[in-house]
């Protein structure tokens, strides 16, 4: 029996991979990468969860959850949004040069 948190985050990753493979619009592909990023973050946090534990802030006694994945994900989210902005600005540059966002029109492929 797989925990439902893992199932949810795996489905986010798989939806992201599907968008990256099947879609041809550049902004859609960037949205897919963003969804994949969120899925990986949720997976890491749910691996570090401990039942009946509190957040790792030592004002209160008791068992705490794992702080290492939280520290990893905290920086990864901020890096994710800045890298997404970089990808979007590259897409805008391509649009200004070619006038389209569809990958097959940019590459000049006839279907």
């Amino acid at each position: 029996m797989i925990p439902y948190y893992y199932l949810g985050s795996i489905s986010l990753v798989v939806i992201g991979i599907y968008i990256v493979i099947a879609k041809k619009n550049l902004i859609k592909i960037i949205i897919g990468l963003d969804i994949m990023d969120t899925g990986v973050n949720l997976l890491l946090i749910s691996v570090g969860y401990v039942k009946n534990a509190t957040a790792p802030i030592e004002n209160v006694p008791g068992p705490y959850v794992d702080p290492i994945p939280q520290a990893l994900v905290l920086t990864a989210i901020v890096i994710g949004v800045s890298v997404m902005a970089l990808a979007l600005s590259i897409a805008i540059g391509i649009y200004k040069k070619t006038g389209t966002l569809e990958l097959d029109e940019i590459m000049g492929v006839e279907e």
Partner: protein
Amino acid sequence: MKRVLALTLAILLFIVFAMAFAKIPFGEKMSNYPDYYNPIENQTSNMSLPQHYLTYGKNDTGATNMVTAVVVDYRGFDTLGEVTVLFLASTGVGSLMYVEDKVKRKVRRSNAVVETGSKLLFGFIILFGAYIFIHGHLTPGGGFPGGAVIASSFLLLYLAYPKFHAEHKKLNVSESLAGLTFVIVGLLGLIIAGYFLYNFLPFGLPTYLFSAGVIPVIYVAIGVKVGSELTGIVDAMMGVRE
């Protein structure tokens, strides 16, 4: 055709991932984790790595929030690298979105409710962001969320006032000063105790504002840096407006 292939591949990947993650337990106690191996002393400890951080973290760093202890103290060098990646991405956005021929786009004026509301809320959101990163070593939060909250308050101003522009020079100065503070604090640790980012200030009493040595200093620097960089990204993506 391509759609069907992609869907098949996605379902196959889902099955593979699900089989891989079925073995990893969810919500398990930390005493069941494997013990960590210390290569310097060449021996295996009797507890796992997160347990070590949770047990000795308060004495090692003086911080109450263990996530902050891991981000700024135990893995501070890592954080310096991540901040550098953020700086590079922000520079890239600025240079790619730079327009030479200043084509101005017309922007509609937003309505009175948004203008008045953002005028009222702006100060409070900035205050909340500053609270988050000043108390990063005591309560949930820290430099990264605080900087994001400050950037979102500037985003509110950008949405409400079409003519608003954050001054690039001030953004650059605050961003560079914050980065310099981080590196100088690290180098001071190198001079005083012999390794980079050493926590050389006195720890003080735990749960007090002035505690945990250099952690609040570094986290305030990170908060200012992240806030000005994300504001710069929003400014560059907004483009030139009239």
